[in-house]
């Protein structure tokens, strides 16, 4: 009789390893295909847009000779397919080209603006999860009661209130009148560049540098825009959590658990909530991804130099190198979040392994 393998699965270790390798290769291939497609689509959109990138560089007073020279230097005189080939080759080397608008390498710009958005969106998402999930659960458990109604109103306001208005009101009240938080910008003007940039996220960099003054100031600046994003995240997460929970709470196994006399807390959190975790991961990942690329208005109101406003400004100014660079990075983030969600599924749901 053959002995069972120590991993209990009866599966040879080498076979398991090769399975992991295959999965990893498939994942990498999927990323490569997705990103290539994204590059192609972004490039094509960039070329068919009815705006002139040369004009945005040389300005409207430029002579025809200057215009033609700039067009040639940008490679726009070459066939489109050749332009795409060069672009694809450069991107593979991490080179997104030079921003037409500010003369900086796009990769450097992204390195500067993306951490600003990451910091803001992460804090906003954490707030959304910490407040939104319990709110959704309580609303479901207390369906039809005043708690449910309050949760509904909170979410409705979050969905329907224009972010522009809410942001300005927040600034007016908490910064302008009460003076509880810092104003627009990532950090007070006196603290700019006081801590070395390690991650590009000022909260973390100031902690690494043990500079509490800068940390406090940066926190006072981020708390309001992050709360605003957190509120929108909360509205979405709480409604989805409520919906998922209602579905579980009406299932037979919950009735059985209650009949068995299990405490209500155990029924809700150990039984019902455990079963919605996988669905919640998808919701949270989507919400996070949206905040990472969709917080343009918040960034504008709070003068937050993030990737949303970077791409928008670039788009309106026909700075296609910057648009394509930013879009590729956001696309990559979506892909990575998707993969991360898949991994979490496997952790929380044995059926997905």
């Amino acid at each position, binding site marked *: 009789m053959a002995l069972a393998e120590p991993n209990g699965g009866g599966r040879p270790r080498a076979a398991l390893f090769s399975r992991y390798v295959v999965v990893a290769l498939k994942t990498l291939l999927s990323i490569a295909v997705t990103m290539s497609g994204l590059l192609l689509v972004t490039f094509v959109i960039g070329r068919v847009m009815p705006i002139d990138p040369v004009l945005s560089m040389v*300005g409207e*007073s*430029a002579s025809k000779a200057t215009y033609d*020279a700039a067009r040639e230097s940008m490679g726009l005189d070459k066939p489109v397919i050749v332009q795409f080939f060069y672009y694809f080759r450069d991107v593979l080397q991490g080179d997104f080209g030079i921003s037409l608008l500010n003369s900086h390498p796009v990769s450097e710009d992204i390195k500067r603006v993306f951490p600003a958005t990451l910091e803001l969106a992460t804090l906003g998402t954490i707030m959304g999860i910490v407040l939104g999930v319990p709110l959704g659960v309580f609303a479901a458990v207390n369906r039809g009661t005043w708690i449910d109604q309050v949760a509904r109103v909170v979410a409705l306001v979050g969905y329907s209130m224009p972010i522009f208005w809410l942001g300005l009101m927040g600034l007016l009240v908490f910064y302008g009148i009460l003076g509880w938080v810092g104003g627009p910008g990532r950090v007070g003007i006196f603290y700019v*560049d006081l801590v070395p940039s390690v991650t590009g996220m000022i909260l973390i960099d100031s902690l690494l540098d043990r500079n509490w003054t800068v940390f406090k100031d940066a*926190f006072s600046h981020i708390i309001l825009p992050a709360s605003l994003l957190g509120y929108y995240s909360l509205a979405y997460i709480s409604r989805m959590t409520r919906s998922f929970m209602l579905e579980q709470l009406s299932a037979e196994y919950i009735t059985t658990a209650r009949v068995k006399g299990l405490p209500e807390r155990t029924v809700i959190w150990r039984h019902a909530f455990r079963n919605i975790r996988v669905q919640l991961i998808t919701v949270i990942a989507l919400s996070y991804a949206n905040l990472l690329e969709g917080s343009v208005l918040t960034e504008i109101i709070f003068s937050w130099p993030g990737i949303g406003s970077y791409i928008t400004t670039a788009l309106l100014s026909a700075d296609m190198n910057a648009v394509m660079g930013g879009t590729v990075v956001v696309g990559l983030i979506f892909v990575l979040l998707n993969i991360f969600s898949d991994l979490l599924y496997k952790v929380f749901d044995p059926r997905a392994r």
Partner: protein
Amino acid sequence: MMKPFHNLMASVVLGLTVGATGLPAQAETPPNMLVIANRIDDITTLDPAESFEFAGSDVSRNVYGKLVNFDPLNLDAGYGPDLAESWTVSEDGKTITFTMREGVTFHSGNPVTAADAEFSLRRAVILNKTPSFILTQFGFSAENVGETIVADGNTLSITTDKRYATSFVLNCLTSTIGGIVDMKTVMANEADGDMGNTWLKTNTAGSGAYSVASWKPNESVTLSANPDFYLGAPAMKRVVVQHVAESASQRLLLERGDIDIARNLNPDDVKGMADADGVGVHTELRGRLMYISLNGKHPVLSKPEVRTAIKYLIDYEGMQNSFLDGQYTIHQNFLPATYLGAIDDAPYALNVEKAKGLLAAAGVEGLEITAGVREAQERVEIGQSLQNTFAQAGIKLNLVVGTGKQTLSKYRARELDMYIGAWGPDYPDPHTNAGTFAFNPDNSDEAGATGLLAWRNAWDTAGLTEQVAAAVVEGDRAKRQAMYESIQREFLETSPFAVMFQKIEQNGTNEAVKNLNLGGAITAVSYWQITK
């Protein structure tokens, strides 16, 4: 390896606790530091040979010395000596010889010499970037700069292709492209024969009152005072220009004392600030004009009666007193007030009956036209006002609102019936606007003179081109002024342009700020004379 992580985790709790208890906002800005909120997302480069945007000019004016320059405390005096101490003009009027000021140094410590001035002007011509036309219009070219721009000891001579008004040449040298760069520093950073252009896009090498300590696109520009500035070390040791796009955010920052100057306040915020303590409003007339133009290729819009009728269908006062209140003033000609030769004639006002009569005389009925307009709020509002007043005379105006680039591309291709736009002078001489509104030597499509507004509107200028060409070479200042006045009076009657407004800039300021000068209609802001 784990130390940073431990630091991080240990600090998070402390930080969150402090943060949650509420933090006081910043107090006033320090007395030797100037903090400005402005929209600076138009800075594309810091190279004076290439820079051609508003926020870029603001930086350049404070970083680079020029041969001649304006005194911010006395702009009305016109240009005066800067890095050139004096100059003489040859008898034929074609050569100007500058004597350089002794003892001035660049930020690097290198002395400013005539060779640097020669290098800077030659470089600007050879690089042939967007603003190069400001110099090449004098006949300078990459091929001839060796003979036309020449340093000799402590003097620099420039020789133009023909006689021009000396004031025209010197006015042009006050613009950004006239900035003198540190040749040794720039050439030490040259790459692939680019004369340091790549390096100077993001770095500076000047001799002005400030050097650029950092430029983070769409975020901030920080300037450090030059303690060796030849006019004396500036009182403001550090100037920080923060990119704040929203007017309301700028106002809040100003009222909280976190900034000293708010550059982009809308009329509502200016009014709302009236009762705030410690802040005031600084007002200056700028060079920007708001105008509409009619395409000469359009069979109806090319008729003189129709052009005139449309000028009577604009509610100048209504717009000035409503949504443009405090931001624009009525001005109906191409030279902004304060320019040499500017006139304040404003014969047109809304007169629907007169316009109807003119349209009837031209045999026009049921006219429908399409106007291109950028998506800027004030321009769209102007468009809507025009829609309303045009409709009163039976003209249907369709607005096509697009991004700046979309609209401009069509305008430059002569494809728009009508354009609602703005124009800012390129340099502080009347020729800057005369040479584009009323100058068009070849009106054919093949000419491709996209830089000329007259060409974009397919207008042959009806003889004004020759008058403009004569005015730009007139050496007598009074005669030259009279020539521009005459050109404008004719322009007012015959041109397809209806100039409507001139820009007023209203800045919110901390009352402690003294000697602020935004540059009026002729130049950019300067910081070295500011005190608090």
